[in-house]
């Protein structure tokens, strides 16, 4: 975790740590150091501007240069590196820059009284000029020269007036006491026009995305720091394509590579997420500012591209942003020019587009992706899918589940990684089951299981006498066959004395279905079938008990409840005809009615149809209509009742029902 702390604050790493871990950008370091070592600064020397996306290593490089100067035998006695970090809140004008230098020289390099000398002139006009002259004079007296290493120079320049920038330019161009190595992110044009002349005479060194070789070097170094060298060396040797995939996924940006690596290596999920959040918080002001600066149409396009994560073409964008194709193309051109978007050529004439800074994309997803939507975590899903083997993913999931069970994970980590793992395609069945069983329902989403997988799981859990689990898997089926329903009865038989399992599970199912309905999602038919069957069984249990004790009114109530239940469920099956497929459920219902009949309670039975209506397809339909065959059968059993003329197929059904009731 320590290493991740410094992903955003490399200066906190300490000199030794930074030097030890410095592995990429060696070529740029060498170029600059060669120049420094062969320059005597008798006349103004070449200044440098390091340009690269965020996370490409500019800050680290500036610090490394400073340390190299400190350690260089030819330089350390006369050349003083002065590092200005990204945040320079106390620099609001050019004079402050020199004051800062003065303070540093006084505090660390024996320039006693320098800052006070400057301060004495604070009330005079041309104060910054004076500060520089004092600095220049003191440097000359001591035979010293300065290298200013200024990070994020755009921010500093924004605070200076036009004249101050010109003054700085003049000093850099004419004075040999100072040279500047500055760093800037990609967007030089964000620096106002009049400041551009400052950079005309800079040598620009670009920190490009890492190539494959540098990516390997970086990973090996990271592995070394985390004592995971064996693992990475094995990956490099046995599956080098994973390195390339990582490189492409991260855009070859060192910080993003290091972040992904840390997530991969880090076994404590909570720590990875905390580290990630920390980095995201640090970059938020910057990235938000970048988004705010874009015109609305471009914001919309960036939003769509970001949420897609993978390369996207104009046609797909069109569907998502609902703008004309040519408008999108024009805006993409502008975004590409401003280096927000990168165009990727394809084999066809349709180009694809991604956000150039992959970490910006990650930030956007994490901050603006919907909380319960897999798009928020798609970046990490892609990484894990491409980087980890199946075994590694299983292992990570197992660790995650352990974390849940031992309550070591906070809610945030639970939600986040629950989303991540449940979004991974091609999970092994073991992993899927682990996640399904361990991630609390409110945090996770149902994972996709094939019907075959579910059937296997039903059999396994049934054999293992894990009946509740078996019921749970049954509820995942699209539709219950009669064999499946038999299994339910089996479970009932085996657990009948403790009817709690059936009842409890039916309540759970009811809750789930209600949630589905609230979310306007149609509950699975299999789930409805199972629910109906379970309640029917439960009610049947009750009916038998009440019959035994002659509590016929209770029996009636239970049968009505069954009928209501079946009628309600029938609503979701669109047509009343379906409900005759409720083979077991109807038989249970009829068993109850038959019980009452055998106890001579025929008038009571007739009262079943006092419940007049069920609402189906927004229409009120009488129970007597839904259960028409039962209704007719009961009518015919009343004293003086007779069979009315029916269509032959219906007559047959009514006869069968009648026979069932009277126990024929």
């Amino acid at each position, binding site marked *: 975790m320590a290493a991740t702390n410094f992903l955003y604050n490399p200066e906190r790493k300490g000199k030794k740590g930074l030097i030890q871990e410095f592995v990429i950008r060696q070529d740029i370091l060498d170029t600059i150091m060669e120049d420094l070592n062969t320059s005597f600064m008798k006349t103004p020397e070449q200044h440098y501007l390091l340009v690269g996306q965020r996370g490409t290593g500019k800050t680290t490089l500036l610090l490394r240069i400073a340390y190299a100067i400190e350690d260089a035998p030819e330089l350390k006695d006369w050349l003083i590196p002065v590092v200005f970090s990204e945040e320079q809140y106390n620099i609001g004008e050019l004079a402050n820059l020199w004051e800062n230098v003065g303070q540093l020289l006084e505090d660390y390099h024996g320039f006693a009284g320098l800052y006070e000398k400057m301060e004495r002139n604070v009330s005079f006009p*041309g104060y910054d000029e004076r500060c520089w002259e004092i600095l220049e004079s003191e440097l000359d007296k001591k035979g010293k020269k300065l290298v200013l290493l200024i990070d994020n120079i755009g921010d500093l320049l924004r605070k200076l007036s036009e004249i101050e920038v010109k003054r700085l330019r003049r000093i850099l161009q004419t004075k040999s006491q100072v040279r500047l190595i500055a760093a800037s992110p990609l967007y030089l044009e964000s620096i106002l026009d009049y400041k551009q002349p400052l950079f005309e005479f800079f040598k620009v060194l670009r920190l490009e995305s890492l190539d494959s070789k540098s990516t390997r070097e970086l990973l090996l170094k990271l592995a070394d720091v985390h004592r995971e060298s064996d693992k990475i060396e094995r990956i490099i040797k046995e599956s080098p394509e994973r390195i390339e995939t990582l490189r492409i996924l991260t855009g070859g940006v060192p910080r993003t590579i290091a972040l992904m690596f840390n997530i991969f290596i880090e076994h404590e999920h909570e720590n990875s997420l905390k580290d990630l959040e920390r980095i995201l918080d640090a970059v938020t002001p910057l990235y938000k500012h970048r988004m705010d600066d874009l015109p609305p149409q471009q914001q919309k396009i960036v939003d769509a591209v970001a949420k897609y994560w993978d390369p996207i073409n104009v046609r797909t964008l069109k569907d998502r942003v609902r703008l004309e194709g040519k408008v999108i193309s024009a805006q993409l051109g502008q975004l590409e020019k401003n280096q927000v978007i990168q165009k990727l050529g394809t084999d066809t004439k349709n180009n694809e587009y991604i956000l150039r800074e992959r970490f910006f994309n990650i930030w956007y997803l994490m901050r603006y992706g919907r909380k319960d939507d897999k798009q928020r975590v798609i970046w990490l899903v892609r990484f894990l899918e491409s980087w980890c083997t199946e075994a590694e993913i299983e292992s990570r999931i197992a660790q995650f589940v352990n974390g849940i069970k031992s309550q070591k994970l906070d809610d945030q980590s639970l939600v986040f990684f629950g989303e991540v793992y449940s979004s991974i395609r091609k999970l092994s069945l073991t992993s899927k089951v682990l996640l399904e069983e361990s991630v609390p329902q409110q945090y996770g989403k149902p994972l996709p299981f094939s019907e075959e997988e579910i059937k296997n799981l039903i059999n396994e859990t049934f054999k293992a006498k894990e009946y509740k689990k078996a019921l749970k898997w049954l509820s995942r089926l699209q539709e219950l066959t009669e064999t499946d329903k038999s299994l339910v009865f089996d479970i009932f038989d085996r657990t009948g004395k403790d009817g709690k399992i059936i009842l409890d599970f039916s309540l759970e199912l009811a809750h789930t279905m209600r949630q589905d309905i609230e979310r306007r999602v149609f509950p699975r038919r299999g789930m409805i079938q199972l629910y109906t069957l379970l309640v029917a069984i439960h009610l049947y249990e009750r009916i038998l008990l009440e019959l035994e004790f002659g509590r016929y009114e209770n029996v009636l109530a239970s049968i009505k409840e069954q009928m209501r239940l079946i009628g309600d469920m029938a609503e979701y099956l669109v047509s009343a005809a379906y409900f005759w497929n409720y083979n077991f459920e109807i038989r249970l219902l009829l068993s109850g009615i038959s019980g009452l009949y055998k106890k001579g309670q025929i008038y009571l039975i007739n009262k079943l149809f006092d419940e007049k209506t069920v609402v189906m397809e927004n229409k009120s339909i009488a129970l007597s209509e839904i259960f028409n065959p039962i209704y007719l059968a009961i009518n015919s059993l009343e004293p003086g009742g007779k069979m009315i003329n029916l269509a032959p197929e219906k007559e047959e059904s009514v006869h069968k029902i009648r026979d069932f009731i009277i126990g024929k």
Partner: protein
Amino acid sequence: MKNVIGTPARGDSFFPRTKEIRKIIDRLVDGNNLNIAAPRRVGKTSILLNLLDKKENDFVYVYVDTEDVCDESDYFKRILKEVLRTEEVVTSRRLKHLFESGQRFLSRIKGIKIMGQGIEFTGEGGVIDFKEDLTNLLSGIELEDDKEIIILVDEFPQTIQNIIDANPDNPQPARKFLQANREIRLNPEINKKVKFILTGSIGLNHTVAQIDSTAFINDLNSVEISPLTTVEAQNFLQDLLATKNMLIDTEVAQYLLKKIGWLIPFHIQLAVQEILSMDSPDADIDKGLIDRAFVAIVERRNENHFNHYFSRLKRQFKGDEFSFADELLDIMARQGVMTKDEIINLSVKYDLMQKWKNITDILIYDGYINNNSEGIYQFNSPVVRMWWQRFICK
């Protein structure tokens, strides 16, 4: 010789511009104050600094950059201070003696004191007329061997522009400034021992023309700085590559220089930078590599070297004048050339028939275009044209 990009070349990094230096020295010797006229990046500052470093012709050179100066008082103060910091002035016993003996001009100076080791500027914080002090100093100054002083003022036109900008709708301060400078230059006491060389990245003539003050610079002798000759350019190229132990075949070198076209050192340096970044140490430089390097000169990574062409345009011209200049360059970048008639035609579109010549003169002076062939205008530099096509053309 190091390949120093963009910064004025000093010392060993400066490629000898013998012809130009000779021209300047001759005219100084003839008693002229000079205005060095040349577009951006031709090497004006490098030449001035070379004079300073080499102490050509045994003159005493004082280099002053006044880009950030925006008022007259500060300007003269800056020059005064730089003169007083000059080694020959600081160490001059003759001058010190003159001060101590109360020489008539020097004794009038208020912002200077004779200290133990020499003469020091003490004008900070006080209310001093720096123009008067400078006039008195330059009038009274005498150095060993009667050495003449050459004051090199870089970005003089920019200073004028700063003063104009600081006083919108009132050209008087800028005129007064020009007048004061002319007075000093033509002061007989000063003129016999001090000369001025003025230069800058924006044209002096058209800066001054804005405020109808060309009369105040009519004493200046204009020296034009040309691009390198083909032979000079070839030598320069060889020297740059030699620092990296690389050689280039003459034919290939000529191929490259032909592509660059306008042979200013800066563009040659950029080309070398790209060649070096592309090449593997053992490979020969061939035309294929040249082609790739040439295209790479205008890659986005070098945008800081070219952006000023467009940003300068936006600052120089406003409203319709900008639109005209922008479209003119756009067409020229695409077509390659424009005729005079086409330009006039375009000027009608923007209702600038009376001004098109002035605008194109500015573009010529600033190095964007030339009309070397009668009636035909084109980009000076194929490199700049390529950049324009790539990043500015609509």
